[in-house]
């Protein structure tokens, strides 16, 4: 993990770390990379990936148009609203 790569990951994830946090995360990644070597010792070329640990079926339901919540209820937890809209800063100058 290089500093430049870490900063690009911060940007992708909309985070901004301090210099101290960056140093600590880079050190953590160095230790983690050494740990990952233990995984690479296992040959998985002929092993299928396992996403779901149980044979769980996707629930299929009939479509029904139901109003669960009102607009007012959904916006009750919003930091800022205005006449039924969520407020965000202007995107286009």
């Amino acid at each position: 993990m290089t500093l430049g790569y870490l900063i690009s990951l911060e940007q992708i994830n909309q985070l901004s770390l301090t210099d101290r946090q960056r140093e600590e995360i880079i050190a953590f990644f160095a230790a983690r990379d050494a740990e990952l070597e233990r995984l690479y010792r296992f040959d998985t070329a002929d092993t299928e990936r396992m996403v779901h640990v149980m044979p769980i079926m996707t629930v299929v339901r009939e479509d029904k148009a139901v109003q669960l919540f009102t607009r007012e209820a959904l916006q009750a937890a919003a930091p800022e609203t205005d006449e039924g809209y969520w407020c965000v800063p202007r995107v286009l100058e």
Partner: protein
Amino acid sequence: MKLYISENPAAKSADISRRIAADDMILTSSLPTTAGSRMLKGYMSLFGAEVLTRLDNAGFTLAGKANVGEFAVDLLGETSYFGAVETDGKLSNAAAELLKAGEVSAVITLDVNGYPRRAAAQNGLISLKPTYGTVSRFGVIPAACSGDTVSIMANDTAAVSEIFAVIAGHDDKDGTSHPEAVCETAKTAAVPIKRIALPVNLTEGTNEDVKGKLAAFTASAEAAGIEVVKVESDIIAVSNIAWNILMSAEVCNNVSRYDGVKYGYRAENFSGIDELYTNSRTEAFGELIKSVIIFGSETLSADKYNKQYDKALRIRRLIVEAFAELFSEYDAVLLPACSALSYGEEIRADKYAVYTENRFTAPASITGLPAVVCGSVQLIGRAFSDGSLLAAAAKITESEGK
């Protein structure tokens, strides 16, 4: 020391045997739900979790929302925005302290990265992480969805069994919910636990207290007529390395929704939309979650996807197969739940300690297998053997000291 993040004052008059708490990963419409994060401070959900609805219908009263580490990924709750819980200068856990104080008879927790099992083991309590898919996760804040399991912590196996009987069952609202008949199987003690495997290489790095608990549990099990056999497993020993990859990737995705716009914390100072997102997330998330996000994001990147994420998914299958092989000879697997019965300064000073300390809890997390913590150690069973594990835990507890 904040045991509750929010409380229901009306619950004070409820009979203690019917009074429960839920950790703050479980949504409630009558109390705020924060996930232990500044990001969700004061957040009111529009609906409550299915598990709490079932418990309410069964006559249980919710006393409050127990303090929890940010998105439940830490050791014991030390990353909570609302403060760590300490007892006699030692790191503790809110759910465990509420039980020890006799405030509630059980706590509903979300086991993301093993904190309920570590807390139960360090406090001599009982914890059940049920088989993945037997308890509804509708209304639970998602963290690492392929392993997140609604769990139960209580003072004894009877209380855990009673709660499990109420909350286990099919739920149409949860896409990972098993059919009712399968969930019913999990409640029964259909297959008695007669032989237990103890993978000794997974006990390395535990201190003398934990080794003592393993020895005491083994002696009690043998006194109860259950054989304990030492084995080794190289693949199960790397469970946490694979789990850290999968967990980080899933948490990274799940917390990407928190951007300070539709709900949650919004930074006061920003000059444009990008700064609003960045400042809100930077100010609201704690350091451990930030590391999880960076880890998960890297793991899912084009460069690392095949080498790390894809590899971890294949390793998961090898671990499931290793357990299946053990279960062809044994009925359960005995493991520690933590490296020490209380965490010293060294582990507390390492803010990323959970990535290695979870080596004891990750085997059950990555496989979705049920795990019961009893006598400060952990018993992992076949899928849907939850009832059998609890019955064995009760039997072994009874034989303690005989």
